[in-house]
């Protein structure tokens, strides 16, 4: 079966992604997506979906797009991982700003989840939003939530 084709340039369009899991870990690119997916598989953690949504400058609009996705209602926990570059506080504030812009709960500190379920869905039990930076010492903790 043929895949989708861009009507403008004729190149193949990737099959759209579906949010499948209650816990979502957002990373920057395909490399990070593959790395964390493999890590979680190695650790036998299979209830977290890793989603590479592109570079950090795109986070603001892409969080809004995720928030209105038809499957967003499934999500109770959201983790965001990004490169802190040379400015960890600035990176954290940038993520907080994107979360606020999308109407999502904003954590007070890195690695400290909010205590509000992002979908306020009483049928879901996990109630954490974790925002963190790509700090080498904290990778595993972040992946584990």
């Amino acid at each position, binding site marked *: 079966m043929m895949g989708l084709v861009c009507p403008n340039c004729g190149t193949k369009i990737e099959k759209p992604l579906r949010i499948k899991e209650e816990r979502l870990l957002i990373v920057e690119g395909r490399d990070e997506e593959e790395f964390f997916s493999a890590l979680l598989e190695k650790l036998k953690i299979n209830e977290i979906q890793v989603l590479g949504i592109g570079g950090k400058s795109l986070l603001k609009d892409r969080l809004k797009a*995720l928030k209105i996705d038809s499957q967003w209602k499934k999500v109770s926990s959201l983790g965001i991982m990004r490169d802190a570059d040379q400015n960890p506080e600035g990176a954290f504030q940038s993520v907080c700003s994107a979360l606020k812009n999308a109407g999502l709960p904003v954590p007070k500190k890195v690695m400290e989840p909010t205590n509000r379920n992002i979908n306020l869905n009483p049928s879901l039990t996990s109630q954490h939003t974790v925002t963190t930076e790509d700090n080498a010492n904290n990778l595993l903790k972040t992946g584990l939530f």
Partner: protein
Amino acid sequence: MVKRVDYQRKTKKDKQGIIKEDKGGYKRSMGQVDTSLPYNMLEVENFRCIKSLTIGPLEQVNLITGINNVGKTALLEAIFLHIGEINPELAWRIDRWRGLGPDYSSSWRQLFWQFDPKTPIRITATGVKDKKRSLTISTTPADATIIKNAIQREKETAFKSSGVLIQFEYTDENGETRKTIGTPLMFIEDEDNVVRFELRIEPPIGLTRFAGVFLNPRGKTTYDEDVQRFSQMRIKQQDRLLIDAMRLIEPRLEGLEILSPQGITLIFGHLRDYNEPIPLPLLGDGIRRLASLILAISAAQRGIVLVDEIENGLHHSVMTSMWNMIAEAATQFNTQVIATTHSQECVVAAHDAFSKRKEYSFRLHRLDRQNGEITAATYDQETLEAALSIPLEVRG
């Protein structure tokens, strides 16, 4: 005869429905509403499968997505009834397009949420000047009686077919209310042989504020409608746009004319390398559909065109160009377009076409069913760009 609505803009109301010129290269954010469009926000209650739905803000051109049976066609039907203001005949017409005959429709139950006519249908639009225009549809049981003054032919007896009357009540942007009653009549010959149905509408419905055309995949526009609309375009010398649009599918097309060689009047196309003109139906479904769409946009000037399954019959390679033509036509004739689609390619093409225009006058709206209720999510340019780039599924 069933009364027909002539979809002309009411001259008297023109001053109240001033179309505010709103040009210029800017992007509207979700919070901004274009108050020059006939439909900005829309609320539908108790209609077909929709218990309660709010959708908007709408743009000049809109695409509706969603899984099967989520209410996309019902939403278009609700807008169609609202354009007609106090015209119960449109309720019969939308049922016919669904394949339901007038005998089924005469009880009106199928119009109402969960087939329950006790709760009225309410369709409220916010449009020109940000003022509300509201249509309420309700039914009234009445005795099934013989109506002698309806009889037009010998041997006929007319009955109220189910004894259920339908009432359309429309409150305009100035708070003025008008209403009509529709009485389904069943004509019987030889005591028990049903020969025809008719809807008697009283008082007369008059003209509507906005022109409206509904193109649906099952009921194609008639050749007569296409011929009439093309004639109007030709008289005003606006047919260049139509030929350009049709050339997307048939690059050999050199011109169009109206001919009636065998008593049936049709649009004919002149093709390069062909000695004689070819009737439009023989040029193929895709070109006919695109032509009908552009003709409908021109006919519904300053009004609205509703299109069910817009991608039908069109190859993916022409879709971006098709959206460019729709955008051109919608701008030229100041017509609002609301279409449904199941095609991701169609969404990508629309986003692509409008992203390259001076003004991104397009929005995507996805209908979802959650806990039995239908909801709408609206994508503006940035959000749709983000969703398609990830890429997320935007069809529900």
